[in-house]
């Protein structure tokens, strides 16, 4: 995907890929960084770093409107105990930017 994007935006080389990773994305940033460094060796992306922005799981209570971080992924309103909670963030897995040297 990164190489497609480099081609599309006519970028010759990059030094970093910015990634947004939600707490509920199923991706472990450490493991992904390790794989990324291995995967890019001997490709046009050699040497590029992965810069991960981690996004916690946050919810908004549909009963009282309270917004809170869902610790341990419990979507239980910390103000009124309601379980009727919309997820605001936490599912992200996005390429945010490419950095040119």
């Amino acid at each position: 995907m990164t190489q497609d994007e480099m081609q599309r935006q006519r970028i010759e080389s990059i030094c970093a890929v910015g990634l947004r990773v939600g707490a509920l994305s199923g991706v472990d940033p450490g493991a992904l960084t390790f794989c990324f460094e291995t995967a890019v060796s001997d490709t046009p992306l050699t040497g590029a770093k992965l810069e991960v922005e981690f996004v916690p799981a946050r919810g908004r209570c549909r009963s009282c409107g309270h917004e809170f971080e869902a610790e341990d992924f419990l979507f239980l309103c910390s103000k009124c105990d309601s379980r009727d909670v919309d997820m605001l963030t936490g599912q992200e897995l996005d390429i945010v930017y490419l950095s040119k040297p």
Partner: protein
Amino acid sequence: MSEKVSVEKKVLSENDRIAAQIREKLGAKRIVALNLVSSPGSGKTSLLERTLDALNGDIKMALVAGDVQTENDAKRLIRAGGMLVRPIVTGGACHLDASMVSNALNQLDLTDVDVLFIENVGNLVCPSSYDLGEDMKVVVISTTEGDDKPLKYPSMFRRSSAMVINKVDLLGLSDFDVSKVKDNALGINGGLRIFEVSCRTGAGLNDWYTWLRELIIRKKRNET
């Protein structure tokens, strides 16, 4: 000084694009699509066998059965009376993706089908990230597993709309606590519809069948 070039693309955007096509195709035909997920051995295939046995002829079902290796699950579904069954052998992949499902659906005649069941690979991690164009995910858990599974795999329970607790005939033989698993699951996702069933004895399955019929009626009326 490096320069940042904005991209802002979902890593799974290609999967999501195909999933949207599937959703549109099934939506136009008013087919309810359920993505069944669970650990290996919780009873996804058994639940579908029971459902075929009880509702075949009454409602028209199409089934796509994913497995890492073998077509055993698909064969079981055909033996149980499934007329429209396609296996997907992932050859090592731990989840189904939208392109696999799309290819399988192209090989099925979906005329007059009421409900499509997509039986995912037994895995509570990766399948949660892949949209297959379903209306909802149904997570199956069984009483021979830990009742803390919702806490261990929150993403899957958060993204599911219903939870089927299977093997309730074995309650008492393990330390599985039904009220605890419900509490754990509802903490992650307060909107979960919960069924307690035994695919071996048939206990509790009537509620599941009733819910399926309601989904189909609502889909035909275009309410979902």
